[in-house]
């Protein structure tokens, strides 16, 4: 089966910068430029610039927009203040995840939602199917926006050199709208997917290359490097942020994934509430753990997790943590084993002890 892969507005720039292009979620994206570990450490120590234009966007607006979102999202939506964003999950009736998203409140009756690339069209169709009699409009803006993420301790300094927006006034999960590197209509939020400080910038697709070049030039003296999807994955895993299709999916609920804090049972009704409530009360049948290994071998997605000779789970994500310099990962394990000190993971026939982490490996 062949499919046509989409390119972001920065495709030519990635090639020019020596990015290695791979297919990802229907897009041709750079997995790395110089190397995953170098790019990862740049984000932890200086800064990295990521093209995340493959992410989708949908605008939800209308008199009932907040009520509509409260009915389909697990987190509180009506209480988001204008100028703030909130992380949430959107669930199926059985509690499985349709997607995880960030919802930006642009105005009382207007929201911009950031969608995972692989789920964007599914999400938009899902939301539209649930509108019912509410007065709300869902607009597909996936191709209108590009997205850049500038992440790392130097990110704020670098960004401040190409915008007059008062970045220091932006709180975590807050945002401002304005001009960046001469491009009008950008949304700048203090958000990210790396576990390091930084910003995400939503910008009109036509301005993407100009803004990216301006950031790379301003950032060079501060150690900014272009960073690819490989580093994005190892950074998010160190910070224990879920990736759809791995730690959360249609078969892994937010309760199982340890995202219970995003599920607000104080809301009287939302899609998935009953199923999630049963899981939260009775304990889910399985849950996601974060682990490290004392070895050099990486336990990758699908590797079997054992307690004694019994398989009790499987690996969901695995990589080498450049900060710890050892393998880390996540696994879905059966109820009763989430605190176990006896688990092992099978790597090509070898059983290695798996150490469950109680907190993310950064911060």
């Amino acid at each position: 089966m062949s499919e046509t892969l989409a390119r972001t507005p920065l495709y030519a720039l990635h090639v020019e910068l020596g990015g290695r292009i791979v297919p990802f979620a229907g897009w041709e994206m750079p997995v790395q430029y110089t190397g995953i570990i170098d790019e990862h450490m740049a984000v932890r120590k200086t800064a990295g610039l990521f093209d995340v234009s493959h992410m989708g966007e949908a605008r939800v607006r209308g008199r009932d927009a907040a009520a509509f979102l409260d009915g389909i999202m697990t987190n509180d939506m009506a209480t988001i203040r204008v100028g703030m964003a909130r992380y949430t999950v959107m669930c199926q009736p059985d509690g499985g995840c349709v997607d995880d998203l960030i919802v930006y409140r642009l105005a009382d009756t207007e929201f911009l939602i950031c969608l995972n690339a692989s789920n964007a069209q599914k999400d938009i169709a899902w939301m539209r199917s649930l509108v019912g009699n509410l007065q709300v409009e869902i607009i597909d803006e996936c191709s209108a926006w590009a997205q850049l993420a500038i992440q790392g301790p130097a990110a704020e300094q670098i960004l401040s050199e190409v915008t007059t927006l008062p970045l220091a006034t932006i709180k975590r999960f807050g945002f401002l709208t304005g001009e960046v590197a001469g491009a009008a209509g950008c949304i700048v939020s203090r958000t990210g997917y790396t576990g390091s400080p930084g910003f995400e910038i939503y910008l009109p697709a036509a301005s993407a290359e100009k803004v990216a070049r301006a950031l790379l030039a301003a950032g060079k003296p501060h150690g900014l490097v272009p960073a690819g999807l490989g580093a994005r994955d190892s950074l998010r895993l160190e910070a224990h942020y879920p990736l759809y299709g791995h730690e959360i999916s249609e078969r892994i609920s937010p309760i199982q994934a340890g995202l219970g804090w995003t599920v607000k049972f104080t809301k009287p009704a939302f899609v998935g509430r009953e199923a999630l409530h049963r899981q939260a009360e009775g304990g889910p049948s399985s849950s996601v753990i974060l682990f490290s290994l004392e070895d050099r071998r990486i336990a990758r997605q699908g590797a079997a997790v054992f307690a004694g000779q019994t398989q009790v789970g499987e690996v969901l994500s695995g990589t080498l943590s450049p900060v710890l310099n050892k393998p880390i990962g996540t696994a879905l394990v059966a109820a009763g084993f989430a605190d176990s000190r006896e688990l092992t993971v099978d790597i090509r026939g070898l059983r290695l002890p798996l150490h469950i982490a109680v907190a993310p490996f950064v911060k």
Partner: protein
Amino acid sequence: MSNVPADLRYTKDHEWVKVAADGTATIGITDHAQAALGDVTFVDLPKIGQSFGHGDVFGTVESVKAASDLYSPISCEVLAANGDLNNSPDLVNREPYGGAWMIKVKVKNAAELASLLDAAGYSAIL
């Protein structure tokens, strides 16, 4: 462009072989292979004395992205394995033809050497 030294022989699986006059050979992976793998994090090599047939898996090289088998280019017996790769697997990225040699072997069937690619033949498949 990948570096393909003229004095080595190659396989289509991206191993290189340096044949010595005394009936031994040194085996590693090519510059093209290390670039395709990305940052190498672990190399699993055989023990001295182990024997492999042509095309047998003799080890594993693992990068952040994937684990890949290493295939024996020839029938051989292992005389030495490069212990430096235990502590510095990144040598594979930095010195694929030098410090990152993987095994030294005794060649069991010299006739098999003729099936290996020369530098021009290997360059043609990259």
